[in-house]
């Protein structure tokens, strides 16, 4: 990430409302790769079947001038209706879901269950030598959970990426 006017990189969460039409995700991903912007996390799903709208949440990092560019570039794509920078508009709720598989026997199983309990993770699959935990929370909380499970026989992690929404009564 180049420093522009010596400004350091910032992490921003952007919410986009787009037409759910073929190619719209390719347009957005292509814009990021073509112009050399970062995607830290990306989620997309239809939110209104009637009006065929999808909501995309992108977490990106860049100097303030680059973040402004990213928003303007996204906004001028024809199927993009709204671009809201949730990092600027005030506190937003950010959540991510992760599924985590741990393998082990004996004491290690006890330890894993204790940690899962203290993170309010649910056990969604059990065998005699493994667990799959489901956890929801801020990305940092999931990072922490995963790092604690690492020495206990972490097998694999599947994360959804961040979904975000602004606090308070108003929509985007």
């Amino acid at each position: 990430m180049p420093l522009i006017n010596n400004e350091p990189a910032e992490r921003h969460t952007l919410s986009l409302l787009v037409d759910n039409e073929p190619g719209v995700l390719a347009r957005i991903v292509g814009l990021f790769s073509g112009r050399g912007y970062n995607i830290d996390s990306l989620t997309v799903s239809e939110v209104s079947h009637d009006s065929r709208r999808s909501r995309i949440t992108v977490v990106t990092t860049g100097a303030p001038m680059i973040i402004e560019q990213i928003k303007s570039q996204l906004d001028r794509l024809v199927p993009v209706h709204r671009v809201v920078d949730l990092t600027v508009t005030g506190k937003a709720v950010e959540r991510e879901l992760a599924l985590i598989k741990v393998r082990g026997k004996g004491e290690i199983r006890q330890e894993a269950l204790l940690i899962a309990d203290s993170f309010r993770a649910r056990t969604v699959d059990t065998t005699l030598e493994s667990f799959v935990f489901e956890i929801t929370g801020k990305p940092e909380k999931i990072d922490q959970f995963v790092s604690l499970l690492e020495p206990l026989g972490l097998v694999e992690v599947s994360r959804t990426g961040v979904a975000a929404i602004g606090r308070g009564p108003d929509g985007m």
Partner: protein
Amino acid sequence: MMREMTGAEMVMQALIDQGVEHMFGYPGGAVLPIYDAMFHQNQVKHVLVRHEQGAVHMAEGYARSSGKAGVVLVTSGPGATNAVTGLTDALLDSIPVVCITGQVPTHLIGSDAFQECDTVGITRPCTKHNYLVRDVNDLARVLHEAFYVAQNGRPGPVVVDIPKDVQFAKGIYVGPENIQHKTYQPKLRGDDEKIRAAVELLAKAKKPVFYTGGGVINSGPEASRLLREFARLSGYPVTSTLMGLGAYPASDKQWLGMLGMHGTYEANMAMHDCDVMLCVGARFDDRITGRLDAFSPGSKKIHIDIDPSSINKNVKVDIPIIGDVKHVLEDMLTTWRGMKAEPDRRAIASWWGEIDRWRARKSLSYAKSPDVIKPQYAIERLYHAVKDKDVYITTEVGQHQMWAAQHFHFEEPNRWMTSGGLGTMGYGLPAAIGAQVAHPESLVIDIAGEASIQMCLQELSTALQFNLPVKIFVLNNEYMGMVRQWQDLLHGGRYSHSYSESLPDFVKLAEAYGGVGIRCSRPGDLDAAIQEMLKSDRPVLFDCIVDQKENCLPMIPSGKPHNEMILPDHPEGLDEAISEEGKIMV
């Protein structure tokens, strides 16, 4: 209007309803139904090109000289991929083009069928927007939307990809009056407060400069008129990018000439030393700014642009105004008059004193020769011969393009067509053909180089077929001149593959196509030879043999700021002008 027809008929009906008179295309398997529908009407005239790249450049020349959208029709696969260079060119120079591509039938998409390619995938990053139409009942709406998107906001190319089965299918056609785009509604009027702040800043300026660009041309002739009015009212100096030439008359005393890498000394120095810069429809491109961190260090910057993503992209500005140039200038003028703004006459007079000292350096001068034709001299004589005529100029890309920008002078907008952003060699001839189609009675000249002209030379055949008497004025120095110049600058004069080996005999070549060939190699013969070219009512290829070693000056070496130009009176040290950091720039 709503009635049933086939997809192919809808294409022709939509073009007619959009007021299209001419289109540029090349038939093939996946567009045959549209060509058949075309056969049954005579409202839209089709110009058959020789290569699809030529079709898009023709549409660009047509659009830029007429203010209307250019229309292209090509087949699937290679037809579409050949159009990609033209589409990218139109995107970078903001030219409204609607390109209709045929596609293999819907059920074969994705099966690697004959002449199949992922047209919307390939053209996504090189168009303003694109569509794949899978249902014939969407087709009419999409076509009208395509024209709307191409022409509104910042203009650009739009691709509509139509599978062959959709062209045959019957559906309901709707006219353009029933179409309103749901979301794409660009903002035309600028923010009042920002306009007021900008006018206040301009009125107090002591060293102002107007830096104008292609956005003034795109906004229409009224924008150029308002720019002139504002300049006259304020008395401030005006410079322009390559793309904006003609928006302000070159004969006016407030005109500084073009700015940027090969701009005039006075224009670049005024940009560097100004205290208030009004950027109108330009985008602080790297050809303009030179070294970014040393760009116009002491100025407050106002930026008018219809595209918010142009604001603060390369250079941070103090007052951004998002809107269409015409509307914003209109409001600025009203505000200026309403405030009874009075420029600081003394400061402005002393600013002009500084500018006149820079002008006195005569940065466009060159050493004339009685024996060889200097390329600058060739452009000067051409300009002299045609300046009172109704003339449109296009160029290819390279030294000749810069010399044309420096030594041919424009009084009106829409008269100058060149590939600025993408720098596409091969643009000039097809663009000239497009301009000639739009203006059949006018004189259209492609100023070219012997290397560039060979990139789309096959379109000479198109010019002959459709009686389009374009003139191709080739400055032949037997080198890819700009490449050679940069090899002088950066690579110790090692001319790796920049010499044009095995050049054709251009006179015979022109004759082989059925056109006229003229060659001139002596300065004393030049005027008469130009007259001979102008007298012909057929396409002419003019092979002007010029000095092989002439460099294009003045020049801001890459990686240097505006006030470190290489001037023609100090060309020595050309090989040391560029620093190590500058060498990586293009």
